C-alpha cells in the first residue's frame, strides 16, 4: 500500500474552460475536498472579474501550501520517496536472515522500531558503535542506515544494505506502517 496522497485538484485551465468556479474559501478542509465545484451557482449579484481572479489565486495558494505541507509530512527524508509497505514486506524476507518482528535474533526485534531510539532495547546486546551513535529511527536515519550501516555506525554488527532508494523506502514504510 502506498502512502496516501492528497487528491489532485482540477487544473486551473480546466476550471476556466468549463466556467466552473470554486466556492468561497469558507473552510480550508472544504477547499481540499472540493477543489473545483461541479455546478455553477447562478448569482444575480455576480462579483466582478477582478474579485474572482483574486479569489482564484487565493484558493490556488492555499491548496499549494496544503499539498506541500502534506508531502513534507509524508516524505521528509533524504530519499524523498513514498514507500510501498507491501513491497517492503516482501523485501523484509531478506532481513529475516538476522531479524524478526517480535523476537531478538542475530539482530534486535523490529516491532516498534520506527520512532524508537537506537540501541534502546534492554534485552538485546548491541554493539558499542550503535550504543554511542545517538540515533532515533525515522525515515531519514533508517534510509541512511539501510544504505550502509557501517557509515552510520562504524563497527556495528550489521552489514546488510539495500542499494536501491525505492527498496529502502519500501522497507521503511513496512516498518513504519506494519511493524508498529
Amino acid at each position, binding site marked *: 500500500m502506498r502512502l496516501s496522497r492528497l487528491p489532485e485538484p482540477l487544473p486551473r485551465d480546466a476550471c476556466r474552460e468549463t466556467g466552473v468556479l470554486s466556492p468561497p474559501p469558507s473552510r480550508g478542509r472544504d477547499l481540499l475536498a472540493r477543489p473545483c465545484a461541479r455546478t455553477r451557482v447562478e448569482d444575480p449579484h455576480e462579483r466582478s472579474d477582478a474579485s474572482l481572479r483574486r479569489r482564484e489565486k487565493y484558493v490556488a495558494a492555499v491548496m499549494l501550501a496544503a499539498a506541500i505541507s502534506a508531502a513534507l509530512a509524508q516524505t521528509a527524508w533524504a530519499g524523498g520517496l513514498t514507500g510501498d509497505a507491501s513491497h517492503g514486506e516482501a523485501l523484509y524476507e531478506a*532481513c529475516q*536472515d538476522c531479524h524478526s518482528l517480535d523476537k531478538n535474533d542475530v539482530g534486535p526485534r523490529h516491532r516498534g522500531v520506527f520512532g524508537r531510539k537506537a540501541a534502546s532495547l534492554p534485552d538485546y546486546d548491541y554493539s558499542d558503535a550503535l550504543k554511542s551513535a545517538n540515533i532515533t529511527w525515522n525515515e531519514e536515519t533508517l534510509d541512511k542506515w539501510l544504505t550502509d550501516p557501517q557509515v552510520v555506525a562504524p563497527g556495528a554488527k550489521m552489514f546488510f544494505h539495500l542499494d*536501491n532508494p525505492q527498496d529502502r523506502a519500501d522497507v521503511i514504510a513496512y516498518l513504519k506502517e506494519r511493524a508498529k
Partner: protein
Amino acid sequence: MTHDHEGGFDRRQTLKCMLWAGTGVVWTVAGGVPASRLIGSAKAAESGFSFVQISDSHIGFAKPANPDARVTLNAAIDKIAAMSGKPAFMIHTGDISHAAKANEFDDAQQMIGRAKLDVHYAPGEHDILDPKTRDVYLERFGKGATGGGWYSFDQGGVHFVSLNNVVDLKKNGLGSLGAEQLEWLEDDLKAKSTSTPIVIFSHIPLWMIAPEWGWGTEDSAQALAYLSRFGSVTVLNGHIHQLMQKVEGNVTFHTARSTAFPQPAPGTAPAPGPKLVPAGELRKWLGVREVVYAPTPTNLAVTDSDLS
C-alpha cells in the same frame, strides 16, 4: 620429478560438476584428487577415502523460508547415515547455529552426532557474532585449533586446512583472514611437498563471487598465493547457500548448499538473505537435484622436485 597417473586420469582431475542428493555431498579422494558423488548411491573410492561436507545448518532458524531448520538438518544426517560406504569424516563449513546460542549448538551437535563421524568445523558469521560468542565458539569447537580457531590435519595423504574468515568482516560483510592467520597458513604449508593435495575449507568463499553482497574474502589472494605451488588445491566454502564452482589455475573452488534455506543468485534480488520458495519445494532448493560429474583430464599437474 613425479608424475601421478592413476585410474586412467591424471592427478589434476578437476571437478566438473557435483552430484547432490538430499542435503549433503560426499567427497571422494582417490589418487589425491577430491571428487564428489551422490550420497547413497556411490561406493567409496577403492583406493582412497571419502568425506562429507554439510553447511549452513542455521539451527535456531524458524521463519517462513524454513519453519524449522532442525528438520532439514536431520534429513541431511539421515542421508549420510544411510550411506553404503562410510565416509572417513565430515566437515561443516559454518553457520552451524543461527544466532550463536548454546542451545542451538547443542541441538546441532546432537543431530550431527547421529552420523557417528568425526566432524571438523569452520565457523560462520552466525556462529561468531562478537567477542563473547567468539570465545564461546572456540571453547566448544576450538579444541586443538590455534587461538583464532584455524587448524589443519592430514588424512590419507591429503592436507586439510580449516580457516576462520568471519571474525573481522570488511565492507559489505566481506570475509577476511587477517595477518596472523595468513602467517600461520604460510608456515603450515611450508613443510608440505608440492605434490600434496590440499583441501582448504572456510565459511565465506575464498573467491570473489559478489563483493557487493559480501560474498568473498578480502585478503584471500594472499592465501591463494601460498597455495599456488601445489598441484591440487580444492577450496570448499558455504555462506551463499547455493552451488557455484570455479577453476583457477590449480585451484578448484566450490560453494555448498545450505541444509536450512536457499539464497538468491547474485544479481537476481536486491539483497542476499533467506529466499522464500513455494511450499513443498524447500528440499528441492536444498539440494534434491542431480548434476553430472565428469573428470576432465585436460589440466595436467606437473610437479618438479629437486635431486636431494
